[in-house]
């Protein structure tokens, strides 16, 4: 019998997968990224429906409990995504700087005292 949490998560899973599909179709998510997130949510659903498998995987990795493994994996993913976001933001900042510089020269507004 399914627990309430599992039913709720199933609903969340469907929403997440729909969102990934929609973003891919609209071209807002690359195919490779879309595939990654589709598999990720499928994997998450599997873990929620069959939580006992995490204990088996945790045993292979030398981690005591399945719940601990989930926390470690989740934290690693959060840090990795933060790192990727950081790089994306820095790249955007540099593009902005280039635009600002081009604009500063382009509009010919170099001010000076009249001779």
């Amino acid at each position, binding site marked *: 019998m399914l627990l309430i949490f599992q039913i709720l998560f199933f609903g969340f899973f469907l929403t997440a997968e729909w969102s990934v599909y929609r973003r891919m179709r609209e071209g807002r998510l690359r195919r490779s990224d879309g595939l990654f997130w589709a598999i990720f949510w499928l994997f998450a659903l599997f873990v929620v429906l069959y939580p006992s498998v995490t204990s088996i995987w945790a045993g292979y990795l030398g981690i005591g409990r399945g719940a601990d493994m989930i926390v470690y994996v989740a934290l690693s993913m959060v840090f990795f995504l933060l790192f990727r976001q*950081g790089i994306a933001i*820095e790249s955007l*900042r540099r593009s902005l700087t280039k635009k*600002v510089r081009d604009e*500063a*020269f382009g509009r010919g*507004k*170099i*001010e*000076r005292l009249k001779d």
Partner: protein
Amino acid sequence: MVGIVIPAYNEEKKVAQVVRSVIAIARPDFVVVVNDASDDNTAEVAVAAGAQVITHEINRGQGAALETGHEYARRLGADFVVDFDADGQFEPADIRPAIDFLQKSTTDILIGTRFGVGGNKIPFFKKYFLLPLARLFNRIFLGVKMSDAHNGFRVYTKRALNEIFIRQDRMAHASEIPVLAHKAGLKLCEYPVRVYYHEYGQRLSGAVKIVGDLLMGKFIK
């Protein structure tokens, strides 16, 4: 042709005096103030003092402002370019001797150092903690050995100016420049300059941010 590049952000109180004294004492061919989207009258004051002013519409940081000034100097074909602070912490009388020193030394870029000249009152924490730590970081992680870790007084030859393109928009440019010089096979020398402290300058939090910017910069093409 000698040009002075002065990045400025909200420096209306000091920039005019700096521009006037630089023009009077160093007699450059041009002084360009890069107004980094100041909220005050920095641009107007600098123009009235005799500088040419390029304005960033959005604040992009000191490194970005310097690179804009360098680009301007490249377009004019400057033979020597001097980076100079807008807050009056450097001594305009050091500019000409530094250029002469660079010419005689057959190196490509000169970086000022607070050490080796009397009268520089470096704050205690900075002198005995921040600067040694920054020197160690530069030496281990960047492969740069210098007596001063972050000095904004620099003189570039035309060759150095055409080889060094600053990519660090904020304060990490001071660590980036010697690294870029080294990568381009340029020779670097140090020259003692006077520094007048109006404010503390870089703090520990700023140093941490610089390290973060340098690390992040490694992952960006």
